């Protein structure tokens, strides 16, 4: 098949190899209806997907989930990625990774390990994960650093842990990780359901920014910090994944190919399955990857906006979740006719938080 010349090729593939997970984080990006997607791709199909991805131009493979380490074939999958010359990253909760497993991941050719930490307060961490997990996460990170494995610590930020952002940075230094991602909650998936319980106050966000700046200015050690600001507090939306169908694709545990891992939240989209079609066909010709690609589909005020090639109208999932219309401008943009919805959510955050709904796989 000859692909249209002007279309970009994907650079990154997110392989969500399972939705199974021992943790129940209330901001998980997995779908709320987890149990609908229980049939997982087998090893041979994933290997074929990696080979097709490499041939299509993917350089970077993110193995994620759920908890990717619950897959018994995880080492085979990492070896397959290495054989395809893909840069491989594994995102894990690290509660099922003992020292031996971490050594095996390295031997299999994994390039980078990303470990989630929910909070630096062990009790708060275990409460949010709904599982005793702090000690195991710490032990896994320390074991990985003992063998020189590159590690990113990823902490999702929200109203329950933002006060401890300084301790988060201290912990990253103490554990000797290479990178720290301070990622404010993105309100899709479980996080949208729990938005009122997770959204920080403006005062919390401003203080956190100050603390990060001060801590980093005072530090002498080596730590690469990526601080993702909460988009609800910004003027313009994020260029979600650098635009729909531009550089990124995801494959869900059941083989559905998605332009973004939360795209399943948008009703009416048909997702092709890697069991039936090649990644190349899916990327270049499927309706769903073309649905919001480029700028031709954009509504006003985006269509005539100077920033249309910068943010492509923002996040489609967020637009749908907040306005009920996936074609709308991301309400985070201050020019959006729905921007009042963001202001209302922020006003709600100034009130006491309602209880959290923890991630469960209902059957």
């Amino acid at each position, binding site marked *: 098949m000859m692909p249209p010349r002007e279309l970009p090729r994907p650079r990154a593939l997110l392989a969500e190899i399972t939705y199974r997970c021992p943790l129940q984080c209330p901001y998980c990006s997995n779908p709320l209806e987890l149990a609908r997607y229980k049939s997982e791709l087998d090893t041979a199909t994933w290997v074929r997907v990696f080979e097709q991805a490499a041939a299509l*131009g993917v350089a970077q493979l993110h193995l994620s989930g759920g908890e990717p380490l619950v897959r018994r074939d995880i080492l085979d999958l990492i070896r397959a990625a290495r054989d395809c010359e893909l840069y491989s990253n594994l995102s894990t909760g690290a509660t099922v990774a003992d020292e031996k497993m971490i050594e095996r991941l390295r031997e299999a050719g994994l390039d980078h390990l990303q470990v989630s930490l929910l909070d630096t307060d062990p009790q708060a961490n275990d409460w949010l994960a709904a599982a005793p997990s702090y000690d195991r996460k710490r032990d896994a990170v320390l074991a990985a650093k003992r063998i020189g494995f590159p590690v990113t610590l990823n902490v999702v930020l929200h109203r329950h842990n933002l006060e401890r952002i300084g301790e988060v940075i201290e912990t990253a230094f103490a554990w000797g990780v290479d990178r720290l991602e301070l990622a404010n909650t993105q309100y899709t998936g479980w996080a949208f359901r729990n938005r009122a319980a997770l959204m920080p106050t403006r005062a919390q966000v401003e203080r956190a920014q100050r603390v990060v700046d001060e801590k980093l200015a005072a530090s002498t050690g080596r730590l690469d910090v990526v601080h993702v600001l909460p988009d609800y507090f910004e003027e313009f939306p994020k260029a979600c994944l650098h635009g729909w169908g531009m550089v990124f694709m995801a494959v869900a545990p059941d083989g559905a190919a998605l332009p973004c891992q939360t795209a399943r939240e948008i009703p009416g989209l048909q997702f092709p399955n890697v069991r039936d079609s090649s990644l190349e066909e899916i990327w270049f010709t499927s309706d769903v990857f073309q649905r919001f690609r480029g700028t031709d589909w954009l509504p006003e005020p985006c269509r005539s906006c100077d920033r249309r090639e910068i943010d492509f109208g923002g996040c489609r999932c967020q637009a749908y979740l907040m306005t009920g219309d996936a074609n709308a401008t991301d309400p985070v943009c201050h020019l959006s006719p729905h921007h009042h919805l963001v202001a209302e959510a922020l006003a709600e955050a100034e009130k006491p938080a309602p209880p959290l709904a923890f991630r469960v796989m209902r059957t």
Partner: protein
Amino acid sequence: MADGIRRPVLAPHARYRWDKVRSEHQLVFPEGMIVLNEPGKAIVELCDGRSLREMVAALKEKFPGAEPEDDVREFIGQLAERGLVHDAAE
């Protein structure tokens, strides 16, 4: 910060990669990549703990007639800012 680097080494999470599909040099790291031109690729390859002066000498040998000193400092500075190189002594 970048000015402090005397002997650049590539960060352990950064990997050079030749992309066969696009015929391009890439420096890949957890959240993205930089597409390298030929001089950029040559500089990245020399980030093995040798001094900046030794890097410049090696580049002059590879690209006769070039005066790469400023480019090397600037590029190493950019990589350091993104946490992709650090000093061998650290």
